[in-house]
């Protein structure tokens, strides 16, 4: 059995992003997806802080500290790129102009709910950032995360236990074990499994039924 490594998970998600989409990638694992989208496939990466048409990290000789992404790392701007302020950037997000958002997750439920911002109602100081705006506003919401927690608890569940970020909007989940669509009324549907991962094994690592077509 060869579960996907993190770069493989990112590459697998990148495969499914077609030319022409406007895409917002969350901080952390989702950000790495951009590295696997070839530059000649024109995908417009949008960053919450008002960068439209982000390119890869700069070479040392073209580093520009005024140009950063939502994770506060230096980036570049592609030809055709533009800048907007925060309110316009989030109008784009909340107004349904983003084709795809990919976020990390603590839990995804069979009904498409996502929990990814707080680990309890009494979290000392949860940080929500733009996750609720993206979760509610993007046309499609994908989640990229490990299939289970470090201590082996399933993250694909019937109902989220953690506080919700967005309700019923997750369409697809990429994990180290495979790719799963989330379909209203059905739940998780297996799209792809990592090499050597059986349906039985993936099911044993999930707390919700995995359906096959």
């Amino acid at each position, binding site marked *: 059995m060869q579960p996907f490594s993190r770069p493989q998970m990112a590459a697998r998600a990148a495969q499914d992003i077609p030319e022409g989409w406007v895409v917002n990638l969350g901080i952390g694992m989702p950000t790495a997806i951009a590295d696997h989208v070839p530059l000649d496939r024109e995908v417009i990466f949008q*960053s*919450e*802080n*008002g*960068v439209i048409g982000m390119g890869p990290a700069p070479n040392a000789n073209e580093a*520009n*500290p*005024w*140009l*950063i992404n939502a994770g*506060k*790392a*230096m980036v570049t*701007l592609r030809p055709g790129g533009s*800048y*907007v*302020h*925060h*309110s316009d*950037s*989030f*109008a784009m*997000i*909340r107004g349904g102009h983003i084709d795809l958002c990919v976020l990390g997750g603590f839990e995804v439920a069979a009904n498409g709910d996502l929990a990814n911002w*707080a680990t309890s*109602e009494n979290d*000392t*100081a*949860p*940080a*929500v*950032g*733009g*996750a*609720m*705006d993206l979760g*509610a*506003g993007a046309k499609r919401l994908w989640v990229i995360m490990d299939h289970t927690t470090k201590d082996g608890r399933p993250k694909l569940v019937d109902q989220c236990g953690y*506080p*919700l*970020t*967005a*309700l019923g909007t997750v369409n697809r989940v990429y994990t180290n074990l495979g790719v799963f669509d989330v379909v209203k009324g059905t739940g998780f549907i297996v799209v792809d499994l990592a090499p050597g991962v059986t349906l039985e094994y993936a099911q044993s690592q999930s707390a919700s039924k995995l359906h096959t077509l």
Partner: protein
Amino acid sequence: MINKIVQSMAEAMEGIKDGSTVLIGGFGSVGQPDALIEGLIEQGAKDLTCVANNAGTGHVGLARLMELGRVRKIICSFPRSAGSVVFEELYKAGKIELEIVPQGTMAERMRAAGAGIPAFFTATGAGTLLARGKEAREFDGREYIMERSLPADVALIEAWEADRWGNLIYKDSGRNFNPVMAMAATLTIAQVQHIGELGTLDPEKIVTPGVYVNRVLQVDRGAPWV
């Protein structure tokens, strides 16, 4: 003659009262009005409500203002970030009030304040913990929650270039919260790297018209730290 350019930090900070709501621009260090925050620390106003995307890092700027016990409440989207040590300590000790706001809702609440809109409905946060205590309403089969506008007494912002009318041009991702904060405050103070003669700023490039700006202070800030 209209001239919003002030010559000293003391002049820039004049009249900021205890109990004020203060908006602080910037995302990361880009577009962050470092010098004005230092000026506010020096000026002495206390019992402040501060609105910023993060809750300060290290022991400088906003973090320093909080450490000195001058901030009663912070409104932000992402309080917990690398180096937010001062906030975490104060929050644990119950010495600072926190209001978490989704980033887009925060920007829109300020835009609304600047545009004379007292409240609006958004799908962001509907059905979550952050919807508690807020009016929920269904439009076209989807649930939305009501968010109030976020007007402020003071905005501290940073821009790349200004003229004496207070027109502002930003650099790269330096716009971020600055233009909406300029709209939402009664007193908007801009820290700028450069000042141009009136008429030299390209009207097509001015993002914040001087209408929203009250005072401009030129500061050689140099590059943001990343």
